[in-house]
């Protein structure tokens, strides 16, 4: 059995080895981009059935951003929505026979976690400037600077390990069961794997929102603008 931590190169472009995870990632990216272009070309005021379905998806993403971050969804819709769509499609790409989800490899998850890490810095600087962003490390007191700095790295690392561990363990367990038992036995495990994949995509997006919202709300000039009472359940009417 192959190690889940290593990846075998599929083919080479020049000196660069291309693994199957990278190839699947490119196919998913192409499918998402071409699908988005094809859908947004023929937008109508009275939506067709397909357009209505995707409007529902966008509205759900908006509602989740509004509920989790307590701000308008417009600046974050593209990032969070793309993140969720990519991870969701990547996790469910195991439905196609012979395709291993790219998120079951460490390098794809590392790239996604790095994107979230950089996005937190980007949105933090955009909300409060460089000073405001750096000041978020000193909240609630300057004593917390080393801990806050460490947290921003460890939470990125845990984001990476969480997605990798969940998806990879699903693939691994199915591989083991398939080598032990026959044709129909792994199907319930595959169904569980699909559920895990959807939940992990949701959780990845929600945690990205929580990290960004934490940095943005701490980096604001006046902390009164964000209403902290609304975050405590039970206090709103």
């Amino acid at each position, binding site marked *: 059995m192959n*190690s889940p*931590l*290593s990846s075998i190169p599929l083919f080479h472009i020049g000196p660069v080895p291309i693994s199957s995870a990278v190839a699947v990632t490119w196919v998913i990216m192409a499918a998402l981009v071409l699908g988005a272009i094809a859908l947004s070309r023929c937008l109508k005021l009275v939506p067709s059935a397909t357009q209505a379905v995707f409007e529902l998806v966008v509205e759900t993403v908006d509602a989740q951003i509004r*509920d989790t971050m307590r701000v308008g969804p417009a600046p974050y819709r593209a990032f969070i929505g793309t993140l969720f769509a990519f991870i969701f499609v990547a996790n469910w790409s195991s439905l196609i026979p012979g395709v291993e989800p790219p998120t079951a490899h460490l390098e794809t998850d590392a790239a996604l976690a790095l994107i979230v890490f950089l996005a937190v810095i980007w949105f933090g600087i955009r909300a409060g400037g460089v000073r405001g962003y750096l000041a978020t490390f000193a909240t609630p007191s300057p004593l917390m600077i080393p801990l806050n700095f460490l947290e921003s790295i460890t939470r990125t690392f845990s984001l990476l*390990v969480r997605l990798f*561990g969940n998806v990879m*363990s699903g693939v691994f367990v199915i591989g083991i069961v398939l080598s032990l038992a026959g044709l129909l036995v792994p199907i319930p495990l595959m169904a569980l794997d699909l559920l895990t994949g959807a*939940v992990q995509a949701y959780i990845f997006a929600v*945690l990205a929102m929580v990290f960004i919202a934490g940095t943005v709300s701490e980096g604001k000039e006046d902390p009164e603008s964000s209403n902290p009472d609304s975050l405590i*359940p039970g206090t709103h009417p």
Partner: protein
Amino acid sequence: MNWLALASIVSAAMAVSFGAIGPALAEGRAVAAAMDAIARQPEAANTISRTLFVGLAMIETMAIYCLVIALLLLFANPLLK
């Protein structure tokens, strides 16, 4: 098989088995508390279940860490190279 490989296999199994106990208990407590909260306040079910999912993911990460350590011991052990 030398004793180092044997120790790696035994400790990988122990890491997963003991590392799963704590998160299992914690997830049980978290779900029970969320059920209690939803039963008391059904109108807050959306907020509670969203927070519950994120919390469960946090708790589950502990078990996943143990799994990753076990896989490192089994497949990427630097002492066995």
